[in-house]
């Protein structure tokens, strides 16, 4: 398989406690960017720093990743799923139980603690993965299209959940999404990427208050932000479609 030049030059600095979203046309390298930041894929050039320390080819402590695909473990109960990372870290059972109980409450999974993922909806399974990440108290949470498989209403509600968790944990969040409204609703800043090789065309600041929820989608300035994002993306999306058709 030929090498693919997925990403162009990227210069990005995330602030502590910031919610940053990345949007871009299909195949522009959004997920590659996330994997590079997470330490799952090393960059061919350049450097990623987390808390001032270079990220190599290992995921640093303090970074949590939530993927688009269902990563809940079907052979474990919800409680065991959430405790997975803590057990691997060697956290004592009393602390594990307390942290898992907190995460269950925070994500609204308390009633399903002893159930198996197969008994939950797709949205709730994604919550299990979110809880499994949160329980490790990451300072940076990377979300790779985590609501991609959910319907629009569930996505809005999950967006509210993520905003609440973001406020309560104080972690920074980097969200990869193809949904402009999702990016506009959730983020402090939205990075708009070009077609492959992806680079930032612009970074749009939303100026939303920290204490926001999905009701902001009814505000006129929400429409202005999504319009701005689409204006930036339209040509790039066309370019991406044409390139995909050629390939």
């Amino acid at each position, binding site marked *: 398989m030929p090498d693919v030049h997925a990403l162009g030059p990227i210069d990005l600095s995330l602030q502590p406690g910031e919610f940053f979203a990345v949007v871009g046309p299909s195949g522009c390298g959004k997920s590659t960017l996330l994997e590079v930041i*997470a*330490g*799952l894929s090393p960059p061919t050039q350049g450097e990623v720093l987390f808390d001032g320390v270079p990220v190599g080819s*290992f*995921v640093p*402590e303090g*970074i*949590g*990743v939530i*993927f688009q*695909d*269902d*990563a809940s*473990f*079907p*052979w*474990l109960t919800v409680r065991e799923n959430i405790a*997975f*990372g803590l057990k*691997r870290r060697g956290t004592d059972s009393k602390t594990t139980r307390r942290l898992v109980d907190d995460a269950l409450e925070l994500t609204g999974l308390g009633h399903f603690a002893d159930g*198996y*993922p*197969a*008994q939950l909806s797709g949205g709730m399974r994604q919550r299990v993965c979110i809880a499994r990440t949160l329980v490790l108290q990451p300072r940076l949470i990377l979300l790779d299209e985590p609501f991609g498989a959910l319907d629009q209403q569930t996505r809005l509600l999950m967006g509210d959940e993520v905003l609440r968790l973001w406020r309560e944990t104080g972690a920074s969040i980097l969200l990869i999404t193809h949904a402009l409204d999702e990016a506009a609703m959730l983020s402090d800043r939205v990075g708009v990427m070009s077609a492959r090789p992806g680079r930032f065309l612009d970074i749009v600041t939303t100026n939303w208050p920290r204490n926001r929820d999905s009701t902001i989608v009814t505000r006129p300035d929400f429409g202005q932000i999504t319009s701005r994002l689409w204006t930036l993306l339209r040509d790039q999306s066309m370019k991406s479609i044409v390139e995909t058709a050629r390939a």
Partner: protein
Amino acid sequence: MRPRKATIVRLVLIAAAVGSLEAACRTGLVARFTMIPPSEMVVSLFGLFRSPDVVSDIGQTLTAVGIALAAAVLIGFLIGALLYAVPRARRIADPLLATYYAVPVFVFYPLLIVFFGLNAIPKTVIGFLYAFVVMIINTLNGLDRVPGVFWKTARVHHLGRRDTVVHLILPCAGPYLFTGAKLAVMYAFIGVIGSEFILSSGGLGYRISFAYNNFQSDVMYGLILFVLMVVILVNMGLYAWERVLMERRGGR
């Protein structure tokens, strides 16, 4: 149909079939020389346990099956994992695996007797040869179904190679490995008992064949019933266990 109702219907059907056979044997519809009534098979079965020779044969067969099975599961799993890890080797092996069960493995039995002598080794090898490929196929099947996101999740949780395999990959592939092991049990029984039928100095197959050749219908049917009971009980136990595993996962 609800599971409980299905179980009742199934038991009624089996009871009806056994009852019909009993009646057919008792009324002479089926000649006694051909088949003894099922109730006499049960009496014969319990009588057989008093014979040290039969007990020894049972021990020989179960030992050979156990060794063949353990080797098939272990070696089959290791080969499956190796083929999964080396795609080039898998591309070479795939057609061989797909056609393996078209080969009548029993044709190698005389060869194995020449190599190893008339002892427990050839029949154990045949049991192994029958059972190990199904384990390879199911190991590959299970590993293929491990979602790619689990490998990434393992890295996010800083799992080493061993921990990834032990805590994520094996549990995820578990149901398929279990299916492989379950089928291997049956194949090992077929291989070992079949070999004992052809040529052997002991074992259940040998004892059934000996009884058949000497017109000992009661012994033959008692032993056949024993083999059926063992295989069915083992299979039912494994099936129940598998169902518990799969129910947890909701078929995932």
